[in-house]
Each structure stands twice: as structure tokens, then as C-alpha cells.
């Protein structure tokens, strides 16, 4: 079988269990601290590395949002203690400086989109779940998989170091539009900060490509006996489409970055033309086109939204089905809608550019394609709701977050239909309405998917449970808080309040939102502190949590629950289990659940 073939041909790989397949896995021979915890090639350890690095970034990125919300909510207040902590570049006279504000907004966006919700989310769960749920001993290339993490780690180090540069990190927005990103003198952060940003992002692209290649090949090539594609859990389907999106769109971003690097360092004119920039003067460049970068950027940028969202969708589907004790409703429709979303993801990028100089005729085509996404999205929502319908629901924290995801996806998705119209977009573009939309539908919803995944698979990851009470507190405050933070932003945006502005005090018309902004900022701080509570729960439970005593605590059908409670490298001590049925035989023939490894009974009803 091809599974074994990889393990045997991998000369330099760490497949130490090769020779002692049938022995117990507790006594690994050549594992030192370094090979087990640092340069590990075990997909489960790499998953944990991605998760914890992602969590560090989530805290930093979240903290940044608290800081700039402080400026937005309390523009007239002074916080001298911040000056002592952060220094004069960031805080002057107890107020966040304008430069720092833009740096914070930019870094918050970059970090959350790429480092937390791409690497932290699909890096963690693709690594952890793919081999365990398809029935493989490890990834197709454990070595490339390890490299993928370490490229991400180096990207993190470079990005982190850009925060400590004298001129500050890049501050032209996470989209890095030229000329702010192409011209070293355009703003303080456009110099060294942008250089580091580009290096970090290039390393990140390499990391996600290496990871994505592995995920695709493992899913297509290393499934266990009997695991046909239509028997895969929806988590795997979603992670598969995520990886395909990443592998096809990140290279285009990289080519955009390469041209940007040439514009910055080698005097070319891909994006720069003879514009006049105050403080710099007229540029010597001729014939560049800034819109070109936007096309290349959003050709990744829009699939990126789905790279973030699809893993959450897949995990939510699985968790909803397991905890409703019901088969997922419309399995093939779920797969089909994932496929439709993956295709459409490549055809809608220009809806980010309706007001930046796009031909209105072209715009109308992109409107149509954008609105088409509502169809597969509605199918998914319908199927989630019908899975819950009359289910025997177990409200575990993971289930709460999964239901919360569905709620957020509906609320945020509906505003997407507004924004997909190029005519409405003229009014709503670059307002707080956008901020509300994408934070709810993509940011918070995917965070909820991630939380659901962590709460659900934590017992498999660490052999212990998270504290449920803390989990419920975490859920309710985050859920209510997320709506309290982002819902009011819709009103601000409809009133025309622009996003990314440092201060609104110059506009009489936005003064009415002063109190609302204060309210949003206060809730943001509360929600942030609850995330710290979650982190305490997470790290405390690794060592002190309640121990898992049964192999299959949820009564779940998927393969990961047939592995030992603390699986070693290679996942199953003996043979890899064979699969006889799909992953969703719940409440069938009077049985609560039938694991995928149970052979089909001839008298069994057809599904």
C-alpha cells in the first residue's frame, strides 16, 4: 500500500517506527528532546507548534487591536503608563501616535489574517487531522512538513523584529498597496519596516506552499484501505479545498511581491509612475500601474478569505454532526458547495477594487460572480441548521462555538450581499461597514471555528480535557462581545464613517458616534481579557486537565478516535484500520453511532 511505500522509501525521514510496526509505541528509540519537541517530523507535534505559535500571534495581534481601539474609543484621554511601557515612538503624551496607530492597524491585519487564521488555523488542523482522519501514519513528506513550520517560524521572527525597528513596522495597511509599499520614503514604515514585512511574507508564502503540497498529496494519496473520497469526513474535504486554494493563489501573491521588491530596490516601474508625493516630489518612474498590484494581491487576497473560512466550515460540520448525534445533512451538497466556493473564490477578486479604477462593465460581471457565492453559502447554512434540527444536541463548549460560528456566518454573510453590489459599494467602500462585515464573517467566525476545533480535539491532542466551565464563560462573553463590538460598526459605516482613520474629531458628523466608539472599545478590552482566560485554561489543562480515559469520548465515528489516547509517531500501533463506511452513521438502525471501521452489516439500511 502506498502508505507503507512512503515510510519505506523515506531515507532520511524520522520514521523510526518502521522496523517495529507491531510493537508498542511507548518506547521510541531515537527520540531526543530536540527531535520530539523542536525539529519534530511528527504531524501531531507540528500541529501543536503551529497552534501555539498562532496563539502567541493571536495575543499580540489582539493586543494591538486593544491599543488602537483605545485611540478610537478615547481619543481625548491620556494613558501615561503606556508611554513607559511602549516608548515614545508608539505613545506620546499618553496618546497613541498617528504613526503607531497605522503601524498597529497594519500589523494587526497582517498577523491575524496570515499568521493566526491561516497558519494557526489550517496549519494546526490540517496537520493534526489529515493523517489521523484519512488513516495515514504521517504526511506524504514529513520533512517538508517540518520545513513548513520552520519557514513559518522564521517568518514570525522577521515580522516580530519589524515591530522593534527604529522607524516602526510597515504602516500602509495589510494589503500593502503601492505607492506606500513601493516607495521607501513614502512613510516611516515604508523603509526598513516594509523590507522586513516583505521578507516575512515571502517566508510565509513558502511555508504555506510546502504545507499545502503535503496536505493535498496526503489526502489524495495516503488514504487508508476503504477510505474513498466520498467517505472522507467534511473536515478533510474542507482542508483539501483550502490547500488547493493556497497552492494556486499564494504563488500569484509571490509574483506580485517579486515585482514590488524590484520596484523598491532595483528602480523598476511596475507599480510606480510619475506621480507627485509630498515630501518626496515627483517620481522619476514612468509607466507603472498601481492597479496591477491590486489585481495580483487580490487574486490571492480573495481566495485567502476562503483559506481562512473553509477549515472552520469543515470542522463545524463535523462537530455539529457529532454533537447532534445525527448524520450531517446533505453530505454531497456540502462537498459540492465547498467545491463551488473554491472555484468562485478565484473569480471574484475584483470586487475589492470596485472604486479603485475598475471598468464599470467589468465590475458588473464581478458583481454577478460575487453574488453567486451566496448560493453555496446558503446551502451550507441550510445543511447546518437541518443537521441541528431535532438532533439530540450535546451542548459542549465545542458545540457552542460551532453553533456560534453558524450564527456569525449568517450575520456576516448577509452584509456580504450588500457589499457585493458595486453600486452600494461606492457608498460603503472603506467605511466601518466593511470592518464590521469581514470581522464577523471571516475574522470572528473563523476564530469560532478554531475555538470549536480546539475544544473538540483537545482531548486527542493532549490526552486531557479543557475545563468546561471556563469554556462556557469563554464562549458566552466572546459571542455576546463579538456582536456588541461589530454590530454597531454597521451603523457607523452606513453613516459614512471611514475606516483606518486615526481620529474623527475633525468631523462634526461623526461626533455622534463618540459614545458608541467608547462602548466598542470597552467591550473589546473585556473580550480580549476573556481570551487570556482561555489561554490559562489551555496551558493549565495540558498538564493538569482531567485525563481522558476512553479512546472515543464523544462516541464519534471518525478514525482519529480509533488511535490510542496518546498516539505515538505513526498514529496506530498495529495495522492502520480499514474503513467500511462514511463518517456520519449516527442514529442509524437504532444504534447511536457506528464507527467507520465497523464492517457493513448485510441487513443494514442503506444510507
Amino acid at each position, binding site marked *: 500500500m502506498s502508505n507503507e511505500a512512503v515510510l519505506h522509501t523515506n531515507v532520511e525521514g524520522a520514521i523510526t517506527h518502521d522496523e517495529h510496526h507491531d510493537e508498542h509505541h511507548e518506547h521510541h528509540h531515537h527520540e531526543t528532546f530536540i527531535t520530539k519537541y523542536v525539529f519534530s517530523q511528527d504531524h501531531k507535534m507540528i500541529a501543536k507548534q503551529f497552534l501555539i505559535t498562532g496563539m502567541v500571534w493571536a495575543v499580540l495581534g489582539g493586543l494591538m487591536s486593544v491599543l488602537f481601539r483605545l485611540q478610537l474609543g478615547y481619543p481625548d484621554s491620556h494613558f501615561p503608563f503606556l508611554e513607559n511601557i511602549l516608548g515614545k515612538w508608539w505613545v506620546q503624551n499618553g496618546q497613541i501616535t498617528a504613526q503607531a496607530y497605522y503601524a498597529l492597524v497594519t500589523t494587526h491585519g497582517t498577523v491575524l489574517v496570515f499568521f493566526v487564521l491561516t497558519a494557526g488555523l489550517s496549519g494546526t488542523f490540517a496537520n493534526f487531522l489529515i493523517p489521523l482522519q484519512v488513516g495515514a501514519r504521517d504526511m506524504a513528506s514529513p520533512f517538508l512538513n517540518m520545513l513548513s513550520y520552520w519557514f513559518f517560524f522564521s517568518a514570525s521572527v522577521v515580522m516580530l523584529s519589524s515591530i522593534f525597528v527604529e522607524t516602526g513596522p510597515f504602516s500602509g495597511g495589510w494589503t500593502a498597496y503601492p505607492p506606500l509599499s513601493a516607495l521607501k520614503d513614502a512613510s516611516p514604515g515604508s523603509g526598513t519596516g516594509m523590507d522586513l514585512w516583505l521578507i516575512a511574507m515571502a517566508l510565509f508564502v513558502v511555508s504555506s506552499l510546502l504545507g499545502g*503540497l503535503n496536505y493535498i*498529496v496526503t489526502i489524495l494519496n495516503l488514504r487508508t484501505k*476503504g477510505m474513498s473520497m466520498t467517505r472522507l469526513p467534511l473536515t478533510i474535504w474542507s482542508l483539501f479545498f483550502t490547500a488547493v486554494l493556497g497552492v494556486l493563489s499564494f504563488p500569484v501573491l509571490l509574483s*506580485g511581491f517579486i515585482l514590488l521588491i524590484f520596484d523598491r530596490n532595483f528602480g*523598476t516601474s511596475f507599480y510606480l509612475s510619475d506621480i507627485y508625493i509630498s515630501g518626496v516630489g515627483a517620481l522619476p518612474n514612468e*509607466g507603472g500601474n498601481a492597479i*496591477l498590484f491590486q*489585481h495580483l494581491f487580490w487574486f490571492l487576497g480573495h481566495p485567502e478569505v476562503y483559506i481562512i473560512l473553509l477549515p472552520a466550515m469543515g470542522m463545524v460540520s463535523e462537530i455539529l454532526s457529532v454533537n447532534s448525534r445525527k448524520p450531517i445533512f446533505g453530505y454531497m451538497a456540502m462537498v459540492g458547495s465547498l467545491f463551488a466556493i473554491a472555484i468562485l473564490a478565484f473569480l471574484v477578486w475584483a470586487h475589492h477594487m470596485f472604486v479603485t479604477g475598475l471598468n464599470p462593465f467589468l465590475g458588473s460581471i464581478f458583481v454577478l460572480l460575487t453574488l453567486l457565492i451566496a448560493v453555496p453559502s446558503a446551502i451550507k447554512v441550510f445543511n447546518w441548521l437541518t443537521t441541528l434540527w431535532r438532533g439530540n444536541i450535546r451542548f459542549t463548549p465545542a458545540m457552542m462555538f460551532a453553533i456560534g460560528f453558524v450564527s456569525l456566518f449568517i450575520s456576516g454573510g448577509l452584509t456580504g450581499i450588500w457589499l457585493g453590489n458595486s453600486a452600494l459599494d461606492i457608498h460603503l467602500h472603506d467605511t466601518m461597514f466593511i470592518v464590521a462585515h469581514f470581522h464577523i464573517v471571516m475574522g470572528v467566525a473563523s476564530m469560532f471555528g478554531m475555538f470549536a476545533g480546539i475544544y473538540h480535539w483537545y482531548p486527542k491532542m493532549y490526552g486531557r480535557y479543557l475545563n468546561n466551565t471556563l469554556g462556557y464563560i469563554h464562549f458566552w462573553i466572546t459571542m455576546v462581545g463579538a456582536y456588541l463590538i461589530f454590530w454597531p460598526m454597521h451603523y457607523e459605516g452606513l453613516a459614512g464613517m471611514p475606516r483606518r482613520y486615526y481620529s474623527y474629531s475633525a468631523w462634526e458628523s461623526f461626533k455622534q458616534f463618540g459614545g458608541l466608539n467608547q462602548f466598542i472599545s470597552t467591550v473589546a478590552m473585556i473580550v480580549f481579557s476573556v481570551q487570556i482566560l482561555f489561554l490559562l485554561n489551555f496551558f493549565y489543562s495540558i498538564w493538569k486537565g482531567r485525563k481522558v480515559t476512553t479512546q472515543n469520548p464523544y462516541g464519534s465515528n471518525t478514525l482519529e478516535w480509533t488511535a490510542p489516547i496518546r498516539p505515538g509517531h505513526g498514529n496506530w500501533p498495529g495495522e492502520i484500520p480499514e474503513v467500511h463506511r462514511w463518517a456520519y452513521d449516527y442514529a442509524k438502525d437504532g444504534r447511536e453511532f457506528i464507527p467507520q471501521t465497523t464492517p457493513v452489516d448485510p441487513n443494514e439500511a442503506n444510507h
Partner: protein
Amino acid sequence: MMATVVSQERKRLHPHKFLLWVGIGSIIMMFAGLTSAYIVRRSAANWLEFSLPPVFWYSTFVILLSSLTMHLSVKAFKAREMMRYRTLITITAGLGVLFATLQFFGFYYLNTHGVQLLGQGSNPAASFLAVITGLHVLHVLGGVIALLVIFMRAYSMRIKSYNVTTIEIAGTYWHFVDILWVYLFIFFNLV
């Protein structure tokens, strides 16, 4: 549905070959991004028209030839004619380096004939050519490095490996960068 799964199991591509094919897909996307950027930019004003350096014809011939020697070396490996295999793989790597050198001669030719590739005053038309061709050369050199690693293995006396997977992967990649250049060459000539 159930019966077909088992029978297909054995015919599956080796996972590392599969990795390469998906990787090739992502490289294609990168060059697709760059060439479509080229098309988009070309339709705008201020686009310098110039003809490609004649030396590119020679480099095209060289890389096509190297594909042939690569193909023969894989055949030699499969026939276990190790001496022939070593010679051919050395020639292939040499032709790869020659290709890269010829490309740089092409850049030099353009620069001396009034087409500035990079730097202030350069036209995007020329810069595009430099960046896209340069990136392709990097991919060829990556292939050369891969061949060197295999070459070292072929001369190492300790390991006698008759596993064709590695050399086949290198071969597939080599043919891919060859085809990629042919595509780029036609693209630059026609578009």
C-alpha cells in the same frame, strides 16, 4: 463505490512524485500571474517594443538538448548502465548552467543595445522580461542543484541505490522547466 477503492490503491502515483506535480501546479500559477500581469500592463500606454536577443534561440536549443540528455540518463538509469547515466546527468547539469549563462548574455545584449532592463529610466516591458526570465533561470538552477545532489549520490560508493523515483522526479522537473521556457519564449515572441 466500495469495490473500486481497493483496486485503485496499487496504481497510485508515488507520493513524492505527486508532491512534485502539485508543486509544478503552483509554479505554473506564479508564471501565469506574471505573464498575465505582462498582458495587462502591455495594453496600457508607454510600452517599449523591442525584439528579443538572438542568443535566446541558442539557449532554447540548449535547454531542449538538455531535456533529451535528461531523458536518456533516466533511461540509462533504468537499464542500470551507471557509467552512461553518470555521463549523461553530468552533461545535463552542464547544459543547465550553459543555458543560464546564455540567458545572461541575452540580458547583456539588450543592455548594450539600448534596452535598459532595470534601474531608473527602465521601461516595464524590459523589466518584465528580466524578472520573468530571471525567475525561470532560478528554477533551472534549482534543477541543476537537484542534479548535483543526485550526481553526488551516483558517485558515492557507500550507497548503491537502484530506486528510480528520485531520478524520475528530477527528470519530470527538468522537462517542466524546459517546457516552461518554451512557453515563455513563444509568449515573449508573440505577445
